[in-house]
Each structure stands twice: as structure tokens, then as C-alpha cells.
């Protein structure tokens, strides 16, 4: 990597080395947050249980016919570099061991429902009593207080709740959302990491831990709040407008010429400035469009956007996609193809930047993992290892962290406590 990534004169540690994290998360938003901490060098010990494994261990994608709990690409991508210990926290002996891990940790995180947190005996009151200087990151669907604190959901329910479904797509279509449980993957884990690192800073400065009460509803609504802000302060009702925006045109996705190996290919294009528009018209071979009175200013283009989009769509339909994107970019216009996942995995730009990591995994082999969302020039942030097998580190954590003997560990496994 040529950019802000390597300095050869000195080997730097990762920035969170020494931070001890106890992880009682599952599914998406929680595990991704603690994965980022692990990739920053924290020692993340994740408590799992064979009795009720993480749903993402179950659903895959996995190789066809593979029913292992260790080969799900969905799970593995979100849990790189963690240690996995299996403990049944609902058994008294298991709960006592869990509490000893709480005493060990600087930070505890869960994104389970309040009900599940009570069942595992890991409420903030219990955790804080066991370790008064710990940070407790609790991230239920709607936060730790309020009339809906017990309400539950997954990313798909959250997408509706936080406004994403209503805001996406076209006014005449059903509010189906965006085809994924979007808030789970970057927004909620990212907000979670920022909040946890802020609390770590406070803990290091003062010795004081704290409760982080993070509502997934609030965290998601925070990045979708422009229409709420416009309603509250200007009385403006939101109208869904597909790929358009109020301040620029043309702005959208336009279907390019049919290619036998790649049907249904679309070009995204955004003219954010008047210069963009003039350059785009010229690059499209129609400099006269920029002289057309209907399209002279952004206000004109917004007023005549249907006619404008029809012209751009007609032009695009006759273009080879990659050539059109390259020509527009050469003219300085923001443009690019709507790529599928295979094309993204093989993108030469991402390859040169070494974005994807391929750590080897004893059962799944070397599979693609998402790289870091931010890069640090001195203290590396990177995916150095694969996700753990279910319970892979039970013995290691039980002996090294909990100080149990081999005999004790064997008994606890036999009695389904460490399972």
C-alpha cells in the first residue's frame, strides 16, 4: 500500500493492544463492533454457547451441503480475531465463571434484548457490581429505558422503525427498504466503536467506567434524520424520489447497453456542480444539452428533470458500461457502474489497496473477509486472523484467564457448563 499505511523505520503496536473486551453479542451490529476492536489489537473474548449458537453461525452462506457451525461466511466475517469460549451462563457455575470474566475485562458489550440479558445474569447492575471500573456497552433495539425498552427486533424490523424503509425508493412503490439490513453493518457497529473508544478514554483518564446505553433505533435514526429535521423545523413533508436528490441533476442510475455476459447493468451518475454538468454533456457527445435553456441551471434541470433523465437514459442505453464510466470520469464527472459482489471482490482498485483479507480458517479455508473501514499510518488496523471455531478457545481462556486446572475444565465441559 502506498498511501497512509506503512512506515518502515519502526514497528508499531496496534492502538488497542492491552484492552480486554468481554463480548456477549450476537448477529450483526454487536459482533462487528467488537471485531473492529479486535482488529485494532484488543483481546476480545466472546462468550458463546452450544445450546443457542449465534444465528449467523447457522444461516451461512456456507459451501453447499455444509452444515457446520464453523463455516458460515456471514459469521466469520464479523468475528475475525476473537477468542471464543463456550459457557452456559444460565447455569450457576457458568454464571460465576462469566462474572470472573467480567472482573477481568475493561469493557463488556452485549446487543441482546433486555430479556436475554436478564436470563444470562449480565445486567448493568450485576456487571457493574462485579467490576466497578468496567465500561458496559448495552445495545438493545430501543435502548435501556422508555416504554418500548423491551421491544425486540432484527435489522429488518429496525429498518422500518428507523425510517429507512419509508425514505428509500419511489413514492409509488411499497416501502420495501434497501434489500439488506443496512443499519446493522456499518452504522450501528461504527457508532458503537466510537462510543466505546470515548468511554475507554474517559476510563483511562479517570479510572471510571460507565454505562453506554445505545439504542439501535436512535443510532440508525441519527443517520436518517435530515427528513425529520426538515419536518420539525421547516414543516417539509418528505417525498421519496428514488435516485434523485433535491440539489443536483442529472443524478441517478441509467441502464447501459445489454451485454450477453452482463445483462441488467446500470451506470450511476451525479452532476453535483455546473462544471460537472457541462463536462458530462460534452463527454456524452451532446455539448448542446448544456446550452439548452431547460437545463441551464440546476433549478432548470430540477424543473425539467423528467426530460433530462430521458435524454441521459437514451444516451446510456447505447453505451458500453465500463467505457461510459471511464469517459465521464476522465471528464471529471462522478460516475461508476452498479457492480455486483463478484465484480467488487475483483475490483482492481480494491486489489491494489489490498482491502480484502484472506486469513486461513481451519474449517472454512482462506475466505474473503472485509478489511478495515479506516486505515492508520502507524498503529495498524487490519484483519490478521480468521474467526474462531465455536468454543475454540474454551480451554485456553479457562486456564489462562480463569485459572482453572485441566481437570476442572474437563469436569465443567462434561457437565455442560463450558459448552
Amino acid at each position, binding site marked *: *500500500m502506498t*498511501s*497512509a499505511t506503512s512506515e518502515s523505520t519502526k514497528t508499531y503496536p496496534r*492502538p*488497542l493492544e492491552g484492552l480486554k473486551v468481554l463480548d456477549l453479542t450476537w448477529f450483526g451490529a454487536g459482533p462487528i463492533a467488537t471485531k473492529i476492536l479486535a482488529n485494532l489489537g484488543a483481546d476480545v473474548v466472546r462468550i458463546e454457547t452450544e445450546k443457542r449458537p449465534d444465528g449467523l453461525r447457522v444461516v451461512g452462506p456456507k459451501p*453447499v451441503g455444509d452444515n457446520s457451525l464453523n463455516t458460515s461466511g456471514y459469521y466469520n466475517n464479523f468475528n475475525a480475531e476473537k477468542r471464543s469460549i463456550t459457557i452456559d451462563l444460565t447455569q450457576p457455575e457458568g454464571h460465576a465463571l462469566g462474572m470472573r470474566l467480567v472482573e477481568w475485562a475493561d469493557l463488556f458489550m452485549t446487543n441482546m434484548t433486555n430479556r436475554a440479558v436478564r436470563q444470562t445474569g449480565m445486567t448493568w447492575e450485576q456487571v457493574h457490581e462485579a467490576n466497578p471500573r468496567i465500561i458496559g456497552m448495552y445495545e438493545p433495539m430501543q435502548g435501556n429505558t422508555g416504554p*418500548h425498552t423491551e421491544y*425486540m*427486533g432484527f435489522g429488518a*424490523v*429496525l*429498518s422500518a*422503525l428507523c*425510517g429507512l*424503509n419509508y*425514505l428509500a425508493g*419511489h413514492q409509488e412503490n*411499497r416501502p*420495501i*427498504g434497501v434489500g439488506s439490513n*443496512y443499519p446493522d453493518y*456499518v*452504522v450501528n457497529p*461504527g457508532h458503537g466503536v*466510537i*462510543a466505546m*473508544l*470515548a468511554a475507554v478514554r474517559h476510563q*483511562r483518564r479517570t479510572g471510571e467506567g460507565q*454505562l*453506554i446505553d*445505545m439504542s439501535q433505533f436512535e443510532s440508525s*435514526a*441519527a*443517520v*436518517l*434524520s*435530515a427528513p*425529520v429535521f426538515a*419536518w420539525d*423545523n421547516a414543516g*417539509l413533508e*418528505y417525498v421519496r424520489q428514488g*435516485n434523485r*436528490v433535491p*440539489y443536483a441533476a442529472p443524478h441517478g442510475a441509467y441502464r447501459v447497453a445489454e451485454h450477453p455476459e452482463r445483462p441488467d447493468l*446500470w451506470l*450511476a451518475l451525479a452532476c453535483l456542480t455546473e462544471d460537472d454538468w457541462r463536462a458530462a454533456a460534452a463527454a456524452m457527445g451532446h455539448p448542446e444539452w448544456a446550452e439548452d435553456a431547460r437545463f441551464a441551471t440546476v433549478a432548470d434541470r430540477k424543473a425539467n428533470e423528467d426530460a433530462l433523465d430521458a435524454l441521459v437514459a437514451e444516451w446510456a442505453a447505447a453505451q458500453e458500461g465500463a467505457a461510459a464510466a471511464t469517459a465521464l470520469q476522465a471528464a471529471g*464527472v462522478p*460516475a461508476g457502474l*452498479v*457492480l455486483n459482489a*463478484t465484480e*467488487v471482490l475483483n475490483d482492481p482498485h480494491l486489489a*491494489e489497496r489490498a482491502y480484502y483479507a484472506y486469513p486461513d480458517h481451519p474449517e472454512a479455508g482462506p*475466505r474473503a473477509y472485509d*478489511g478495515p*473501514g479506516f486505515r492508520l*499510518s502507524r498503529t495498524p*488496523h487490519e484483519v490478521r486472523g480468521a474467526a474462531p471455531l465455536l468454543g475454540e478457545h474454551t480451554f485456553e481462556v479457562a486456564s489462562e484467564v480463569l485459572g482453572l486446572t485441566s481437570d476442572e475444565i474437563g469436569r465443567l465441559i462434561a457437565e455442560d457448563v463450558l459448552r
Partner: protein
Amino acid sequence: MAGALDDIRVIDATGPIGHYAGYLLADLGADVVKVEPLEGDPARRWPPLLPDTPEPEAGLQFLLLNVNKRGAALDLGSTEGREAFLRMVAGADVLLESWSAREAEVLGLTPDVIEAANPNLVHASVTGWGLSGPYAEWAYADIVALAMSGVMNLAGFPDGPPEQLPDHQGYHCASINAAAGVMAAILYRDATGEGQRVEVSMHESLLMAQETAMQAADILGTNRQRTGGGGATGFKMPGLGVYDTADGALYSMCTGNAGSGFQGLVELMRELDGPSEIHEEPLFSFVQERMNTGLLIQAMQDPEGAGEIIQTLRRIDDIATDFFRRHPTQTLYKRGQELRVLLGPVNTPQDISESEQLAARDWFRTVEDPARGRTLRYPGPPWLLQATPASLRRPAPLLGEHTNEVLTEAGVDGGALLAAGVAR
């Protein structure tokens, strides 16, 4: 109680791609100074606009994401402006900017120049494509990053275009990563005194949001496509998806063993309407005994053999559709959640504005904005930090509102720059 960053000064010289990063750091207590070009940030003029407010102070997007910041307008292309900027950087802990490598070079603000001005700085760069690689100097826009990251490929109906995500999710994800990177770098700087660079690409920031599409391509060699909300099964599972209600719409996830499953929904039907066809044979046994993940897998693996099952599932889905249509969203949501039925309202901006849950948690905040002659209502922070709470301390800056103040703090003769027309 003070914020976790109450001793940190941030220079935020980003365009719209980085506004939210500065906003988040300000919420944690940092003193954030927004540095804009003389004509102002482009988002100052983006509709929608605050009514009865002169240009360039009315752009709602700008007001939303630049609250809590001070503002200075500086011509970085001028020698005096550039030197003043470096003086400001020298007194800061964090610099956020959004220049490509070539733009930084044209400005004479390359990383080595910045580092010379402040060797211990945390210097974050937030751009469309990152600072290296074949696309590094490409133009960017939110929708283009959504396209190139594969995220847009999942959204929309099969017979319509791929759809962007609303409200600038590319800019938001890039900003979130920038703020997270700055936090990690601040912790390291606290421990060692050493600063470093943080590099964020909006394109890369979005890749994780492909959900399982990347792994499906890597492990199975298949590409997920936009399905119009229908899922990948080829048939409609009852209780899964968006349904109309008497007064709006909701998302229902009553399937498998999520919450109380479809069986919970059947209980909700009994509670609200009394017993009906679905509480009688043969449907009742089918729902209780067969509507589980096994059935789903069976139908997916053998869609033809599942013909009869699919007829039954259709009938059950019609019953669910009719049930949802006859009741108001809030009744279904609240009574349902009490039974652990996984339902969520398709909330509109007005619904969120009026949410009783958000009200009970005092999520919304108000800020006096005397220059714009009103009190503005702001959405809350994404987190509640009990010991180091978020705070809104000042309205979004007018263009150049604090130019003289921040230049004076940096030991620069602000009056001379203003008179020379290189500051505003």
C-alpha cells in the same frame, strides 16, 4: 459532566463527505472549527432550505451536520490563507480534511507540510476512493460509491433501477469510519504523544453493507440481486415482509423461531379478532407443527414438490394480509410486541418526530439559533454515554462567523486577512 473529548480541538476542513465526522466529535465534547472556502461549503445552498432565511444560511443539511461547530472562511489557495491555516493546524489536535492527493498538492497542504506544522497531529483524510489506487483521483458522489461498493445492487425492484440509499449513507459511513479512526488514534496519542494519519475511503466504508452478498460470491460463486423485498426463496413466506395496515404499513418478521414466530402472530390475531379460520383445522395444525425453518428449507430445495405447501402458504399469507389491513399500525405494533411478535412500524419522519419512545428518552434536543431567529429542534446523538454525556452547545455557524476569533487564537492577524480578502 464533561465530554470525553473536552480537551480536543478539531479543524474540520471537509466538504459534505466529512460533516458528520466533525458532528460526532463535537457531540463528544471536542471544540470543532469548521473551515470553509470564502463562498461557503456547498451544502449551505442545498435545498431543502429553512424558510425566511437568507442565503447561504438556510441549507438544512448544513445546519443539521454543522451544529456545535465554530466556523471560519478562508481562501486556502492564497499564500496568507494557507499560512494562517497551518497556524491553526499547529494549535489543533485533529485535522479532518477531504482532499485527494492531487488537491492537497495544488493547495500546498500535502501530508509532509501538515506534519511539519504539527508533528503530533491526528490527521484524517476522508475521500471518495482513498489516497491510493487507480481510482484515487476519480470524482466521487454518494450515489457513485453506493454503486461501486455493490450496496446499490441489492436495493430496488427487479423491473426497476437499482436504488440509492436515502440521506447520504456513503457520506455517513465514511464519516463514521473517520470518527472511529480518529478515536483510535487519539487513544494512541494519549499513551505515547505520537500522532498519525487516518485514511478513509467512502467506497471501502460501504463494502461491509453488502450483507452476505460478498460471501455468497466468494463461497458459492453466486451474486445476490435486488428482489423487491421478496427475499431469495422464490416464494412468499407468510408473515415476512412489508404489509399495509389500516393507517400505514409495518414490517413483519414472524417467521422461523424469531421472537414468537408465526405462531405468535396467530395468537395476536386471536387476541384482536377472536378465533377465525387460522385457528381451525387444517390450518391450525399446519401453522403450529409445520411452519418452521425445516419447511422453508424443504420448499427451497424442492420448489416443485412443494406445490401444495405453497398453496397453503399463500392462503395463510392472504389471511395475514387481511388481518394487518384491518388494524392500525400502533395497535399491531404494541399488542404484538407484548407477545414478542416481531413487528415494526414503517415510520415516516413525522412518526419519528412524535415517537413516544424517543420522547421518553429525551432524544430530541433544541438549540437557540438567534442569528436565524428561531429555536431549532435537533435529532439526538447515536449513543448515551452516562458519565460523559453528549451536548449541543452552539448553533451551526454563519459563514465566517468565527473567522477573526479563531485566527486570533492561532496568533494570526485576522483583520489583515479579512481586509486582504483572503478570509471572510
